[in-house]
């Protein structure tokens, strides 16, 4: 009897391990030779990026390297001038941002873009827009279906607020809460759409050390939700602390990628970026 149980355990365990390996190998987001040109400036130049499922990947590089531009092309705000973006194997060409979030990519912005004059709760409720579908007439007439959906949206939003630690500010206008909380609110809004891939643009920018630490813990917790995370970051503690994979960008091109510790000691990277950063670090 005991032996049978042991066998079952082993079988189940190895099945799980296979799944884990399969997940780690699965590519969630990929860019092939991605190019974006603004007038005379090639902001992104034949850029290849791979983000693996279930992992936290970081995109780093000096200011002006083109990192945010990559995000903007991936999320549909800009149209690529060359190359492809593949999400779960699907080509995202020509899709608008509201379609892309529906496919499962949610993002935050470098300069926080919240709905300032709406409450925190409303901001997060807005995040669920792509996961709900009650239309105009249903809303005007307040059909039972619409009311039920509104209640669900509200509940989900409240849960997300609790998850990002902003439950007590739910009725406060977004513009009135502290900066660090605003960053978390934006993440909460992105999470509300139940994404597969979460893209965060400098989430720790403007946060103090304690807040950055909390952010690291929080991001790690998200992995348990089957989320994949892609970060742009300048804070090396955050990058080193949680990344499974780091890609380095400079002047629109990829100059290195690999495990955090490998990238950290790559002389090219140090020269382009880390070296300067070390001098400026307090």
């Amino acid at each position, binding site marked *: 009897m005991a032996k049978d149980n042991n066998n079952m355990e082993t079988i189940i365990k190895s099945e799980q391990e296979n799944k884990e390996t399969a997940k780690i190998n699965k590519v969630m987001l990929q860019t092939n030779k991605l190019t974006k040109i603004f007038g005379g400036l090639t902001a992104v130049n034949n850029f290849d990026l791979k983000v693996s499922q279930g992992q936290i990947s970081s995109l780093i590089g000096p200011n002006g390297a083109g990192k945010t531009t990559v995000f903007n092309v991936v*999320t549909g*705000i800009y149209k690529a001038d060359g190359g492809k973006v593949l999400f779960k194997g699907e080509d995202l060409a020509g899709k*608008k*941002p*509201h379609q892309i*979030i*529906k496919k499962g990519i949610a*993002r935050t*912005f470098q300069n926080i*873009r*919240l*709905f*300032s*004059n*709406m*409450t925190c*709760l*409303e901001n997060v*409720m*807005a*995040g669920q*827009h*792509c*996961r*709900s579908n*009650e*239309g*105009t007439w249903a*809303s*005007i*007439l*307040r059909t039972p279906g*619409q009311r039920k*959906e*509104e209640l669900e*949206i*509200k509940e989900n939003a409240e849960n997300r607020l609790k998850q990002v630690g902003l439950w007590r500010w739910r*009725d406060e*206008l977004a513009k009135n809460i502290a900066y660090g909380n605003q960053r978390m609110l934006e993440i909460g*809004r992105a999470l509300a*759409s139940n994404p597969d891939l979460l893209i965060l643009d400098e989430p720790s920018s403007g946060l103090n050390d304690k807040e950055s630490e909390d952010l690291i813990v929080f991001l790690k917790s998200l992995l348990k939700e089957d989320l994949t995370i892609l970060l742009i970051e300048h804070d090396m503690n955050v990058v080193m602390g949680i990344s499974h994979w780091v890609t380095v960008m400079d002047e629109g091109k990829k100059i290195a990628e690999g495990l955090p510790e490998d990238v950290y000691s790559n002389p090219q990277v140090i020269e382009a970026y880390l070296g300067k950063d070390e001098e400026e670090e307090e």
Partner: protein
Amino acid sequence: MKSNKNINQKNSIFQNWLVILVAILFIALPFIINAYWVDVLFFFGVYALLGLSLNIVLGEVGLFDLGHMGFMAIGAYTTAILNTAFGIPIIILLPISAIAAGAFAWLVCSPIIHLRGDYLCIVTIGMGEIVRLTLNNNPFGITGGPNGVFGIDFPSLGNIFVVDSSTKFYYYIWLIVGLTIIGLVNLQRSRVGRAWNCIREDAIAAEATGINVRSYKLLAFVLGAGLAGVAGNVYATKLMMVSPESFNFMESCLLFCIVLIGGMGSIPGVLIGAAAISLFPEFFRTFAQYRMLIFGLAMIVMMIFRPGGIWPRKRGAFKVESLLIKAGEENG
């Protein structure tokens, strides 16, 4: 916390009694005042409906629309022409006028909906002017030129319910306004209203949050135009005639001010704004010459001292809007 709860309870009780009181007053009013003032209150109702219709576009979504009277004109003239030429009953023409105005909005706004705020503003002015000028020029002989179209019937359901007196028109318009308010409040508390407000706050973030910005902007225009078309229908049938000058740029500006002075996105605010616009001139009849001058001054003063509007929108999902004006509640 306990005192808060008490205050909230007191607020609710106060609110309910206030609403009941206002409702009773409203219903009884025509029997207390003379016909002239009943007419004034009728036009208050029309401005209220127009203000609410513009509020969707300007207040909820934040789009500068300075040509809104063009939509009302479409509705009014649709009613006028179809009624005088084909004898179609006014009641049936009400939804038809709404649809005509809405369709017109959809047609003309689709190519320009993406324009930046100030440019959209001038294009809407242009649209409004194009409508007015075209109506004035009597194309194909159907609009009657500067004199317009006259001989429009009253709304009626068979021979029993005929709206043909000042009092009946008063109830008619305010019934429509009441229904409109209910519909709009429902919209405000729904996914649609939320999407609109998100667009107003930050269109790029809204798009990235999953809102089809273009669709929702168009929706706002179409709904706003439809309601304006309804207002046009009622207006035409009360006056029994329509002429292009009723729908000029000045009127569009006044509508704009109603929404802004009342408080953007705020339904009670729009009602107050409409009251101000329609009742203000009445109190200054003796100073007829200086009326608009004082009105213009009042606008400037209002914006200096209370730019958020007289009754700014109070936010809070699922909260009944408090009827008590909180000092310093700036939501502009």
